[in-house]
């Protein structure tokens, strides 16, 4: 054969025709040149909504501590991991695995908002074309920092995408006053640009931004501003398409929530999930062990008896209040027999003899996993009822004794009297002439029952500094470890302080 030359040539060719070895991924999203239209901005904001619905945030890791730290919810199963028990008993350490899970997720939500805001700017569109969309990102950022600042106080604050990790790793904590100022500024932007109403309550509207401004001002004890923002929402309730749902029970029926007009912003779960993304756990965490359920839904089955109110909650709550019946389960079905809650520990040693939370497990709709995990229940972050109660509480601080303030509370109470279509006379309207201090307490109590187990109570305890009272010997939950100089704030994760020593010192007491 005389083709040596060809073979050699071929060899040389194969040596010469080198690949550049550049990676050209298909199916992987590159940030470079990603933003081409407002829809792309929405897609990134949607990512932040997705993050909020993760197990590591509203699914369980943030929601459960918020419940357990309050005086309304304690631990059922004593064998549940210490990371949960520590929040109930105020023995949290700086490596608590609930905190170390929702901390990064919070900042991933914020990073998505920052990315969306920067991406929107890069589009060079008119304000009118882009701001109504990007205003959602401002709201998302404010909403998330509002949680963080209430939980941790001073925190690292970022308002732009990180491109230089080395520099970002050295920042100091931003004082909470400054964080609040930024939150207000973001919410003002959101209030200015968001539409009056959105096609779904999973998206924030102008009213949502205003309601959150009211809530932020209330937290800062800036009552005139809080009242003004709440009043703005109430005065325009028609424009904003807001109303109180007629039957309190329907608020917690996952199959009915999507058409309701009470929520101003909801974490939207639809009974599907991608692993732990989009999966909620409240139904499982609050359910009764070995319970075969009164509705016989075997696909749901038992709960885990983790987050359970103390018996004091049941005893303190007026039995005539329809909201008590909606919020608590007092019976279960075991081996086919309906039993009262005194029987629960007999059915399983992991249960306690107390009424269980019903808001998340009674009507969860479709569930993707047993135990009422991955339900359709939407988590209302701001109900119109709360806006009314904010207005009442704030107005009482500005102008005590007004009929207007009582009227707001009475709207909430009137709805509670509707017992599935049957009007009762409890709770009665607020009588006029209550002094400022009593009215203040009345509203806080009203919030406690109306918003029970909706993750609000801990923040109320903190902003009104109720700890020693509610965790004392006469409180619903006696917690001897509670230390007001320490426990109104959580510790920043210890490893985050190792990564950036400029974040030190940690919050007092940790």
């Amino acid at each position, binding site marked *: 054969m005389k083709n040596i030359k060809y073979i050699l040539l071929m060899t040389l060719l194969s040596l010469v025709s080198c690949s550049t*070895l550049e990676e050209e991924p298909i199916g992987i999203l590159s940030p470079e040149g990603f933003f081409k239209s407002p829809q792309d901005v929405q897609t*990134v904001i949607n990512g932040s909504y997705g993050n909020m*619905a993760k197990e590591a945030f509203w699914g369980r890791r943030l929601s459960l501590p918020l419940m357990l730290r309050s005086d309304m919810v304690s631990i059922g199963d004593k064998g549940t991991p210490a990371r949960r028990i520590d929040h109930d008993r105020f023995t949290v350490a700086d490596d608590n695995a609930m905190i170390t899970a929702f901390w990064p997720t919070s900042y991933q939500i914020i*990073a998505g908002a920052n990315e969306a805001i920067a991406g929107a700017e890069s589009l060079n569109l008119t304000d009118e074309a882009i701001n109504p969309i990007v205003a959602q990102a401002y709201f998302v950022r404010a909403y998330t920092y509002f949680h963080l600042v209430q939980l941790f106080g001073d925190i690292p604050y970022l308002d732009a995408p990180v491109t230089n990790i080395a520099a970002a790793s050295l920042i100091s904590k931003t004082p909470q006053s400054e964080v609040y100022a930024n939150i207000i500024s973001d919410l003002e932007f959101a209030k200015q640009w968001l539409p009056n109403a959105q096609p779904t309550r999973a998206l924030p509207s102008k009213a949502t931004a205003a309601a959150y401004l009211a809530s932020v001002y209330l937290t800062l004890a800036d009552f005139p501003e809080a009242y003004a923002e709440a009043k703005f929402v109430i005065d325009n309730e028609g424009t904003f398409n807001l109303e109180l749902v007629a039957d309190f029970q329907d608020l917690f029926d996952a199959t009915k929530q999507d058409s309701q007009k009470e929520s101003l912003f909801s974490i939207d779960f639809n009974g599907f999930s991608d692993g732990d*993304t989009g999966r909620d756990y409240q139904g499982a965490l609050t359910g009764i062990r070995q319970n075969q359920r009164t509705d016989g839904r075997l696909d749901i089955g038992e709960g885990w008896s983790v987050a359970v109110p103390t018996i004091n909650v049941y005893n303190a709550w007026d039995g005539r209040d329809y909201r008590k019946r909606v919020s608590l389960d007092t019976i279960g079905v075991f081996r086919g027999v309906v039993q009262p809650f005194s029987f629960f520990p007999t059915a399983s040693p992991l249960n306690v003899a107390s009424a269980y939370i019903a808001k998340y497990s009674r009507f969860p709709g479709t569930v993707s*996993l047993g135990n009422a995990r991955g339900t359709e229940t939407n988590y209302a972050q701001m109900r119109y009822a709360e806006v009314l109660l904010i207005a009442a509480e704030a107005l009482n601080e500005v102008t005590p004794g007004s009929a207007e303030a009582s009227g707001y509370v009475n709207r909430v109470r009137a709805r509670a009297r509707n017992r599935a279509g049957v009007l009762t006379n409890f709770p009665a309207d607020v009588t006029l002439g209550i002094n400022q201090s009593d009215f203040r307490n009345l509203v806080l109590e009203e919030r406690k029952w109306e918003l029970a187990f909706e993750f609000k109570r801990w923040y109320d305890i903190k902003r009104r500094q109720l700890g020693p009272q509610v965790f004392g010997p006469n409180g619903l939950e006696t917690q001897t470890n509670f230390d007001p100089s320490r426990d109104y704030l959580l510790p920043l994760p210890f490893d985050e302080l190792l990564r950036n020593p400029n974040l030190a010192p940690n919050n007092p007491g940790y």
Partner: protein
Amino acid sequence: MSKHKFKKLLKTFITGVFIAISTVGYSQQKSVTGTVVSTGDGIGVPGVNVVEKGTTNGTTTDFDGNFTISVANNATLVFSSIGFITKEQSASGVTAMKINLEEDVSALDEIVVIGYGSQRKSDITGSVSSVSSEDLNAFPVLDAEQALQGRAAGVVVQSNNGGEPGAPISVRIRGNTSIGASSGALVVVDGFVGATYPQPADIESIEILKDASATAIYGSRGANGVILITTKKGRVGKTTIELNSSYSSQSTSNQLDLLNAEQFATYQRGINPAYVQGPADTDWQDLIFGNGNIANHQLSFSGGTEDINFYVSGNYFDQKGVVVNSGFERFSFLTNIDAQVTDKLKLGFNAFGSRSNKDGVSTQASSGGRGSGDVISIAYRFAPDLGVLNANGENTFNSVGDDVDNPFAIATERIDETAIDNYRANFYLDYELIENLSFKTTFGFSTLNSTRGTFLPSTLRATAGGVGGIAGVANSKTSNILSENYLTYNKEIGKGNLTLLAGYSYQKTRSDFFTAGAQGFISNSVSFYGLAGGSIPLIPTSSLIETEIQSQFGRLNYDYDDKYLITFTARRDGSSNFAKNEKYAFFPSGAIGWKVSNEEFLRDNKTLSNLKFRASYGVTGNQAIQPYQSLASFESIYAVVGDQTVNAIVPNQLSNPDLKWESSYQTNIGLDLGLFENRVSLTLDYYNIDTKDVILGDTSVPEYVGFLNQTTLKNIGEINNKGFEITLTTKNFSTDNFSWTTDFNWSRNRNEVVKLVNGDDIFLDSSPGHFLQDETHILREGQPVGVFYGYDFRGVNQNGTLPAGTAAFTNNLGDEIFTDLDGSGTITGADRDVIGDPNPDWTAGLNNTFRYKDFDLGVFFQGSIGGDIFNYTALELASGGSNATTEALNAWTPTNTDTNVPSAAVRARRITSRFVYDGSFIRLRNLAMGYTLPQNIAENLGLDNIRFSVSGQNLLTITDYPGADPEVSYQASGNQASNVNQGFDYGNYPNIKSVTFSVNLKF
């Protein structure tokens, strides 16, 4: 090469095959008879190939060395046999002849395959172990890698799932050299890099390259060692047909002693006095475990002329697993054809294909909460006082602990089928350009296509009852193109011998993957083939990954006077996986050898037949980086707005332009010693491997920067492995009627994490999800990889006064007490420490082969000593919310205080030393007895050879481990998991004991 040229060559080649086959049946002129004897002892040599030169005409000698052959009048006969020097003898003018075959003086001088070439074994300077075809086929195994277990020093073989039919097998050489990247050895089959293992019966030899001198030619893929497999080829001579058939009967090697219904109810009443005993008494292990079997048939044809040879084989393997409803079936074929087209040009073609079907059952579940869990772990924990069906005729689910479906229902009703098609074709051309210089080019293509379908019917009420059944299909397809071209130059220069190799290689791999699923089926008969029948489609996924490697490589071997050896090897790899600034990497190595026994002063020594010292040093790499890991990216995320799933993405990571491969710096010092004409041969090796630039997630980036991927990958870590290996073969007896050979190998590997990010411990969790643990084992500087981390169990609280230095979580009598490390008086996370090391102190294999006349006996032991096991099953069964082992009968009560078993209670599942056990074992891996029919009887039956054998596998295991089996591998699949998750036991498919009957026919 142009396409045209290639076609022409292929045509020549195929024509050659047909010519070769059609030339069988030749004109005959005369008959020659003769005897072949060994020059050493004058005794007849059986099985010598006798071939008429230049033809396919041939025969083999009988047991006494006699042969008869019809040949042309002026024929030349060629006599060849392994272990003897091939001899040619003219048959011109004779009809009877006696042939003296000279023994090949050095049995060491077998030719050993090395990367891109071959070498005399005595010339090797690196550390290379060989495993023979005989050892690989000592008993039937599904995959060749299983047959490697215990056969070579420094090689650890482990099933990823006990005795599961079709379970992946991991092969580790000299320890774990990485944390995040695979530590599995690179497999090269007939020159195809990254191939899958062929059938054991098709393998001629396996060479295991262990040190850098041997593996550096594979550069960035050589750090974990290389397994070179050569498949069988046809030999010159008459066509041989070989049939191997075996049948095995199998059962589980062990079961746990659990409480029966009565004992269980009593135990549960100790926890909850209101417990009402259920209606049945079920032994769930009996229900799910049964007898399994394997049928294995292999048929091969081989033969050839001097110009062309072929080997064709087909294999059928069918296994019914010992767990109900599990099995594996496979058909495969292999074809090797080589043609000497001209004096200078050689062509070859190699094709492999297989189709397998796996019928899986759920094992090793990553969580055992409601609706999940696997058949095995649930069989242990499920209430024995329940039956399979309840009074309504529905499947029961558990009455204590998480409500999981019963194991029999899961085993029989859950469908999990995987079908895999695997094809590989490899073509080569070898041309002698000029004297001493040859060029070889190979071109290969392989594809692996896997489809897995699962269906959970709604009758599994806890798992899929509420959603009307769940079905899913996953498909993955990986294809590989490989082109390699290299020049080999070989020249004797005076007393020296020089071999040079230089080449270029290009390989491209493409993997695509998709999944789809649905739930809400009207009927359970639809399964995963009718996803459209589901009312609710699940989120589909898909991905595509492409990687490329191009490389230049070279080697220099120089041997002076058959005494002094020197080897230099280098490879430069460019990989698309590497980051922008680090696309190319260079991997050099060097080695020297000294054949002391060839020096004048030892040459005539009668005792010392071989003595060689070896030393090598070199760098090899590990492509630890997954594709696209160095690029900035957004990641899509599941999000719901207005009850609809919407497009949503989150920032995932910044680009990482400096990410590069991991490098292993390996030193090897070895000694080969042969005594008494090599009747005793000993090989010793010491090695030290420093793996640097180990890729770890740099957790020093604050999480508040907000990327989904919270850790930036960086080349930070260091790991050290050092060890010692002994291989000893002795021919204890060797007479005509009786022989006894012993093969022994022993190895120890010491593994240490040298450097982590900022010296911080890395906490890991391998526990089942429903245990709700965060930390079960750790990586800590100065410790081996993956040591167990938890509380030190010190017994039970006997009387309320705890021994000094101990404390408890709760202070009831009968509760567990632990060492109070920080002396705080209470037990907190700070009281945890290292409580066990899964790495064995040493592993060994011992094989004895006896032959008496026509009988042979093989006894093969394998052992692993000193590795700890953390038994999650024991932990679960001691936690109250499940059935328990009979240990619970000895639980602490006020009247039974002389015990270390805590009182019956529902207890938090904690990682404590109570569940750490010594996992040492010695196992009779194989005991085989064979009988070969005498040659004359076989011949009367028209056969060349017939052998029957009966063997037993895993008949005996010596261990103190109280779990089901000490060979455990929970959560050990995947790159990082396979390195760090060692020694965990949960839901493993049980190991198997089997008895095998085999017959081997050759004609």
